[in-house]
């Protein structure tokens, strides 16, 4: 059974290789091949899952070692896989949602002439993502980590002819690289500390290492997580990443890749458990991002960017939960999975809307679409209810647990974190209601496309609606299923679990959560449901305007890194040319000048030469006499 693990990665990898190298021959059938291989991965995942369920809780981890990747004295990096419950969860999420989105893309990308390549990139992504979660050591994880980064780069920039897409892709990769730097430094510290970077030995011997070292590793891992999961301060790329095709936003930038940071932190639980300072920073980052994303999400008129803000915020929840330690790990993953369902569903819904609206993304130009796109409306609506934490739906269960755990952190921190998560829940309800109302309710505010064609909103084809329906089912049911099927027990052997001692009772927290949700929804209804939505965005308050600009983070980045960096490189180019090269050229010029002067002695007059000969003879005689005198 274990030998199948490699196939999980291998199937989509094969798909990517065939599709990308296959040439035009595969244009007709390529998307079917890609979808099939993603599905193969999912089926293998299911088989392995069944096998795993059949074993006792302590014996569920499976290992497969292929070969030694980098054999250097004292440094062994293996291509080896580890499939435990945590990885299994991810495998199913990735391959399951991945397959659905492959199916969706068949319809969505139908008219794109480069569809084959799109499926190749998707397969590449699935393979890399699976490699990331299946790796049994940090270096192989890093392989997958960068692999998904590459796939994300290729897919964000899939419509390369649009400069904005190309820029967004580049930005995503480079910001991610900053995070990757953290991961590689973390691996370096691990290697020098433990002499290895395989999960097992490293995590088993965290007790031996010093607190400072572990904090350093933890912070570096956090940096990596911030990059990949779009957490403050490395969050700026996610909004721009919405330039990519919508299935990509759904799969990579909502359901799977951006949650890799959460995976990394939960996977390194033992390190963080031993480094409370690092944990504290993790929770702070989570809390800040949670609010940051939520506020940005409130101000965006672009439906995908609003959802992107939401993604950021929800991952903030997960990171926060992961920073809480054993009381939060399980819920972080739980929220991750439910979020994977409903956020993917929401994105697919958004894609379906755009599909019907001439690729318009501005919600101010939507309105009243519920009659034209009933399936989209219903699935989107279910996703909406799930994310705002409507009781009984999946988001309710997972988010509620996180809020509870935040309070259970204890002390002032616990109160602050709890309050932040509650506030986040309120804002979530607000901005999601806003999206819902602006898109599906109210009067039509449609505009003709640049060619003058009025939009003809219509329901999307089956290949698109079926995945949306399936994801909606997941959004509705997953929470309850996890709650009652024992998700905590499932993951506990890997991540550990501790019951927090909340100063508030569970019922109080739940009530509070529902209450803030209602307040958020109500506020949004008052603002967007009762009054007509202006087609041109009002100027808005200072905060709104700042939020529209991603709370000026981009401007800051631009001013400091882009402009500053440009100045640095320009001046360095100048320095290189004038100073470094100048010293050498100056020496050359000096030698040349001296030669030019000396050359004048060669004036062609025999008498001048005679003088020098004569002088030379005199010097020789002088030297001879001196030598004799000595």
């Amino acid at each position, binding site marked *: 059974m274990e030998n199948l693990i490699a196939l999980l990665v291998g199937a989509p990898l094969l798909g990517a290789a065939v599709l990308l190298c296959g040439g035009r021959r595969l244009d007709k059938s390529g998307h079917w091949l890609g979808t099939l291989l993603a599905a193969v991965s999912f089926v293998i995942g299911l088989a392995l899952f069944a096998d795993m369920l059949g074993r006792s809780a302590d014996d569920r981890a499976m290992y497969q070692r292929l070969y030694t990747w980098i054999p250097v004295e004292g440094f062994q990096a293996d291509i080896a896989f580890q499939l435990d419950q945590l990885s299994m969860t991810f495998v199913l999420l990735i391959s399951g949602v991945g397959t659905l989105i492959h199916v969706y893309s068949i319809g969505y990308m139908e008219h794109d002439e480069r569809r084959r390549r799109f499926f190749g990139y998707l397969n590449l992504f699935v393979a890399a993502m699976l490699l990331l979660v299946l790796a049994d050591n940090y270096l192989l994880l890093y392989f997958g980590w960068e692999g998904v980064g590459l796939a994300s780069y290729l897919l964000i920039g899939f419509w390369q002819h649009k400069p904005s897409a190309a820029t967004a892709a580049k930005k995503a990769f480079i910001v991610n690289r900053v995070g990757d730097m953290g991961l590689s430094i973390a691996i370096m510290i691990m290697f020098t500390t433990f002499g290895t970077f395989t999960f097992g030995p490293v995590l088993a011997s965290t007790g031996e290492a010093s607190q400072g070292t572990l904090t350093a590793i933890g912070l570096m891992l956090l940096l990596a997580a911030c990059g990949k999961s779009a957490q403050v301060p490395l969050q700026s790329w996610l909004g721009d990443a919405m330039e990519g095709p919508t299935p990509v936003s759904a799969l990579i930038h909502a359901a799977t890749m951006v949650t890799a940071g959460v995976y990394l932190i939960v996977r390194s639980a033992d390190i963080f458990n031993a480094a409370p300072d690092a944990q504290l920073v993790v929770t702070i980052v989570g809390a800040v991002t949670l609010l940051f994303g939520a506020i940005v999400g409130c101000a965006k008129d672009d439906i995908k960017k609003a959802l992107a803000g939401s993604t950021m915020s929800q991952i903030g929840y997960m990171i926060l939960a992961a920073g809480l330690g054993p009381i939060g790990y399980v819920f972080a993953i739980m929220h991750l999975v439910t979020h994977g369902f409903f956020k993917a569903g929401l994105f697919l819904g958004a894609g379906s809307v755009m599909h019907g609206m001439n690729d318009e993304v501005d919600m101010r130009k939507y309105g009243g679409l519920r009659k034209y796109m009933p399936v989209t409306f219903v699935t989107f609506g279910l996703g909406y209810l799930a994310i705002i934490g409507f009781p009984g739906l999946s988001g309710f269960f997972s988010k509620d647990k996180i809020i509870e755990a935040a309070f259970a952190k204890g002390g002032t921190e616990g109160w602050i974190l709890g309050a932040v998560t509650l506030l986040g829940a309120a804002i979530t309800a607000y901005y999601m209601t806003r999206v819902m109302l602006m898109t599906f309710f109210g009067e039509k505010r449609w505009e003709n496309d640049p060619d003058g064609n009025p939009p003809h909103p219509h329901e999307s084809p089956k290949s698109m609606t079926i995945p949306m329906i399936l994801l909606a089912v997941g959004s509705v049911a997953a929470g309850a299923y996890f709650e009652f099927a024992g998700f905590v027990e499932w993951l506990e052997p890997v991540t550990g679990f501790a019951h927090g001692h909340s100063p508030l009772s569970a019922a109080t927290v739940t009530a509070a959560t529902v209450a803030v949700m209602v307040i958020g929804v109500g506020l949004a209804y008052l603002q967007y449901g009762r009054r007509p939505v202006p087609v041109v965005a009002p100027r808005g308050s200072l905060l709104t305007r700042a939020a529209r600009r991603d709370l000026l983070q981009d401007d800051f980045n631009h001013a400091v890194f882009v402009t500053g960096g440009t100045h640095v490189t320009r001046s360095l180019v100048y320095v290189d040319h004038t100073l470094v090269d100048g010293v050498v050229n100056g020496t050359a010029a000096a030698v040349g000048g001296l030669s030019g002067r000396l050359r004048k002695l060669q*004036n062609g*007059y025999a*008498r*001048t030469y005679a*003088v020098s000969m*004569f*002088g030379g*003879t*005199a010097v020789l*005689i*002088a030297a001879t*006499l001196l030598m*004799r*005198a000595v």
Partner: protein
Amino acid sequence: MSATHLAAYTTSSGEAFQFWVLGTVAVVGALATILMKKAMHSALSLAGTMIVLAVFYLANGAYFLGIVQIVVYTGAIMMLFLFIVMLVGVTAADSLKETIKGQRWWAAACGLGFGILLVAGIGQASLTEFTGLGAANAAYGGNVEGLAALIFTKYVFAFEITGALLITAAVGAMVLTHRERTERARTQRELSEQRVRQGTHVPPLPAPGVYARHNAVDVAGLLPDGSPSELTVMQTLRKRGQIRDVSGEAIADLKALEQRSEERLGRDRDEEEATR
């Protein structure tokens, strides 16, 4: 200390007197050689110095060399110099004005330094031994015999080689100066026929200076309009560029001069008449 030993260190006072007098002459001649403006004077000064040197050779017991110096050097080589000086002529290059910047200073510095070094070197050398040539000359029965013995025994190869060198030099000089005539020289008749055929200058060329009140060969004759005609000067001088300038201005100056002298003469005449 015997007389012979003493002779090894000093010479007779007659020789000393001769040295100081003739030495002065030699130095003055050498200086004149390099300082005289005209090559001819330089050559004559050099010849004087060489004769003095010949006397010194004789005084030093080198009788053969002394004679050779006079006969070969002063007689033959210096004559060659004079011949060439006459052949090449007196040119503008004879000016002593220096044209290369700094050349004179460098030359003076180097010369001075070199001289001082040489003198210092000689002064430093331990030249205390002074054998004299008496024994050496006597060994073969005389100076000439001694030299002959050495040349034809020890230095016979060098001697032969110098012979070859001389031959080579003679041939070389001939090759360098000789111009091959590739066609028969044309006769006077042929030349006149050619002149008629070409139609230019059928009569003989005009004589120089005739119309310009000068009859020196290097002054160009004036054409009716007053401009000088280079044709009137002989070809050799023309090619050397040794035509004296008789431009319009010069003629005007001359005229003015003549007029002034005329006036003066006239005044004198007037005065004469007045006194009379």
